[in-house]
């Protein structure tokens, strides 16, 4: 995989009608600032988007991308700054206002109502939808948009519940197309899509831009940015770092902008990796299958070895880990822990077998946000810290202090509610509760550094390595190639619920892994360098 992009290659989607130097501006953001409590998400951010362009916004987690997007669609009000749309200053108090101005958003967190039909969802909340809305004209419009996106096989009357994630994403985009928006914001829209589906989205985007509309494309999949976009703005730590025409920049510079030079260097430090085959087999998974997401997965997890499941969102990596955590009751197949077969249909059984799972949605499913950090850290070991059902207060406090220190969470936050911590610290608290827990055979970490900045990520990776060194088997899932390469001793690539390859880190190449993660097995041979 080459790091440089041929500057002369034709990329971007600019409409031939628009000349870059005299382009009209559809959106202007001036000195936008927003804080959430003590956290300053965005600081004095200014940027503009031209009519008829696809403008990429890149930045690592925590850079401020999602805050910017939320402000543009009225989900968040700026503390400071001005937003100008089509030359006029506007105030976006809610999604309704945004829609009225012609701004529309598609993001990873789908806003479809599963109980309603496809057609109902397409027209949900649309301003122009008439009172009596089940009309032939509208249905025809919806049908043609769905066909355009390749969803010919999806009936208008099907309820969204029965669609796959990829199909749902496309329905959400269909809603956008039907709304006649002038500025479309696509926030990581391709994470759950297969290659052909991504192509369709790109084509639809190019068609829109040819009509004179504008698109903001938020993504960290740089290949797509280079393929689709005309300009790119890089955000870092809540500020705009650079804006370039796409043909003026190359991939390495882009990454450097995103990471900052020092950080970039730090992230590239090579770590020693353990070699598989030397430890005892702690967990053996045989033919794990979950209808609809995972097919025939067999893995061997050794003590002291960190196994990384590399796959995109929706590829099944998360489901595999959840199954190990007892959260997938309809999983079939066998799992042996230290030679003994175990039943994993409830979290309690998984925990009793020594399998400790940490969810990827730490706010919704991981932490108890309103409870203190101490309570969060000790939730998994209350039995050990109590006698005859009565809590041993002093031991609990001591354990909490030890865990906090190990995880790198400041001790004076122990009494504060977990909600008051930053994303990175919250993730550390979540991880902390899994450390040094007697009887743990396996740690299953679902996206252990999601939403954490580079510094925090390095800290968490060190924690995981420490845990492995003490003999625990570790398996984690990640959608980020760099994380997999940095942390895993063994790389397992997953695509569409199946294992594509299992490679020890020493023999793994970045391009092969990326190829395995993003394409089907048949074409992976072409992509390997």
């Amino acid at each position, binding site marked *: 995989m080459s790091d440089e992009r041929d500057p002369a290659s034709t990329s971007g989607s600019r409409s031939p009608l628009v000349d870059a130097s005299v382009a009209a501006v559809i959106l202007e953001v001036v000195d936008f600032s927003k804080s959430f409590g003590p956290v300053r998400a965005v600081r004095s951010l200014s940027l503009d988007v031209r009519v008829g362009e696809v403008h990429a916004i890149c930045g690592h987690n925590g850079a401020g991308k999602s805050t910017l997007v939320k402000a543009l669609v009225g989900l968040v009000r700026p503390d400071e700054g001005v937003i100008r749309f089509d030359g006029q200053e506007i105030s976006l108090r809610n999604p309704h206002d945004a829609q009225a101005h012609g701004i529309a958003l598609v993001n990873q967190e789908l806003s479809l109502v599963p109980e309603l039909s496809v057609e109902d969802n397409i027209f949900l909340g649309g301003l122009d939808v008439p009172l009596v809305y089940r009309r032939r004209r509208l249905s025809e419009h919806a049908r043609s948009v769905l066909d355009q996106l390749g969803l010919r096989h999806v009936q208008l009357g099907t309820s969204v519940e029965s669609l796959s994630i990829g199909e749902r994403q496309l329905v959400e985009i269909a809603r956008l197309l039907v709304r006649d928006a002038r500025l479309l914001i696509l926030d990581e829209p391709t994470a759950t899509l297969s290659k052909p589906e991504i192509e369709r989205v790109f084509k639809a985007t190019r068609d829109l831009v040819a009509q004179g509309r504008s698109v903001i494309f938020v993504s960290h999949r740089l290949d797509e940015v280079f393929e689709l976009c005309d300009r790119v703005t890089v955000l870092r730590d809540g500020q705009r770092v650079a804006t370039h025409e796409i043909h003026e920049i190359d991939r390495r510079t882009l990454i450097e902008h995103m990471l900052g030079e020092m950080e970039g260097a730090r992230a590239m430090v090579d770590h020693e990796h353990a070699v598989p085959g030397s430890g005892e087999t702690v967990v053996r998974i045989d033919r794990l299958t979950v209808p609809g997401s995972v097919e025939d997965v067999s893995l061997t997890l050794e003590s002291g070895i960190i196994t990384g499941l590399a796959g995109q969102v929706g590829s099944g990596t998360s489901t595999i880990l959840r199954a190990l955590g007892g959260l997938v009751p309809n999983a079939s197949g066998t799992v042996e822990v230290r030679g003994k077969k175990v039943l994993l249909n409830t979290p309690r059984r998984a925990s009793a077998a020594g399998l400790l799972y940490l969810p990827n949605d730490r706010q*919704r*499913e991981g932490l108890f*946000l*309103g*409870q203190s950090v101490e309570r969060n850290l000790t939730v998994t070991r209350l039995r050990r810290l109590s006698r005859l059902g009565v809590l041993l*207060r002093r031991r609990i*406090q001591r354990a909490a202090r030890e865990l906090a220190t190990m995880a790198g969470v400041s001790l*004076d936050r122990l009494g504060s*509610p977990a909600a008051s911590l930053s994303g990175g610290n919250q993730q550390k608290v979540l991880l902390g509760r899994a450390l040094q827990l007697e009887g743990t055979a396996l740690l299953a970490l679902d996206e252990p550094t999601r939403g954490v900045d580079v510094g925090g990520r390095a800290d968490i990776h060190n924690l995981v390595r420490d845990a492995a060194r003490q003999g625990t088997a570790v398996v984690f899932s990640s959608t980020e190639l760099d994380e997999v390469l940095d942390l895993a001793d063994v790389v397992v690539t997953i695509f569409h619920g199946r294992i594509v390859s299992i490679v020890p880190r020493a023999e793994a190449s970045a391009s092969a892994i990326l190829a395995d993660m993003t394409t089907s097995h048949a074409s992976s041979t072409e992509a390997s360098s």
Partner: protein
Amino acid sequence: MSSVMARVGIERRLLGLADLALAVWLAILAVVTVYGAATTTGFLTVSNGKAILTAASFVGIIAVGLTVIVLSGNLFSLALGQTAAISAMVFLWTLQWGLAAAILLTLLLGLVIGAVQGFAVGAWGANPIIVTIGAAGLMEGMAVWLSHGQSIIPPSNETSWERLGQPVFGLPAPVYVFIVVTVILAVVMRRTRFGRQIYLLGENRVAARAAALPITLLTVGAFGIASLYTAGSGILIGATSANASLLLVGSYTYDAIAAALVGGNAVTGGRGSIARTAAGAIFIATISDMLLLRGYSTGGQILVRGIIVVVVVVLTNLRERTR
């Protein structure tokens, strides 16, 4: 140095918050009492004070039991009034086998009634409000059926139960029971693994599941305790009225819920305490008493109680966004 600070810091904020809320409540109670004393005749007398405490006790015992359900995130139970009435009826009826047997059997019945509801909610995810509405209907039907529509009175040859209604050192026995069981439950919720896990469950049910907490057991426990406490109150009510029928249901259900809410417990669970509910029960009893002395009718009392509930719910849950 940092370890000392840490030791002080741990749970300081949570403890502080709880104390603050309680302090605010006591302050309001004080203000109300003073106002009441100044403007209402007959309010600031010993006998009136006793009346308030007695009324607060019957509701209070039920309310503190109910609080465990509230803290566990299961909203509340609408079956407690019926449970109390049935318990009173069962108690008086089983007195024929002696006081000890009567108390034991009644409490056991309460526990089982609650545990069954808790199981449906915990293991099967059934909606707690609806389950308890249905259970209430079932209990009413059963009560009338088994009693042939008549009130239950205690057996004539057994008088040991009278002790339960009698004053001890001037205060009616129910008041002592209220204090004792409140303290016991407060300690359980603060100091035991069960209590801690209930708070966590109420805070975030999904996370509790992922963290392998014993959700079914906890829910059975919560509903079981609530029902057990209600049965206890039913025993005292029966002993005090010497007569039991479904008429006893009265407004206990709503009064207990009001006490828990007015005390400042978050209806969505995870925040609050037994002490707050006790304060809420006393507060409501005080207000009701004052209204009664000032000649407010039944309607007026219900109305004021309703307004207080709405106001407190708005204030307390202002920060707890639900969706």
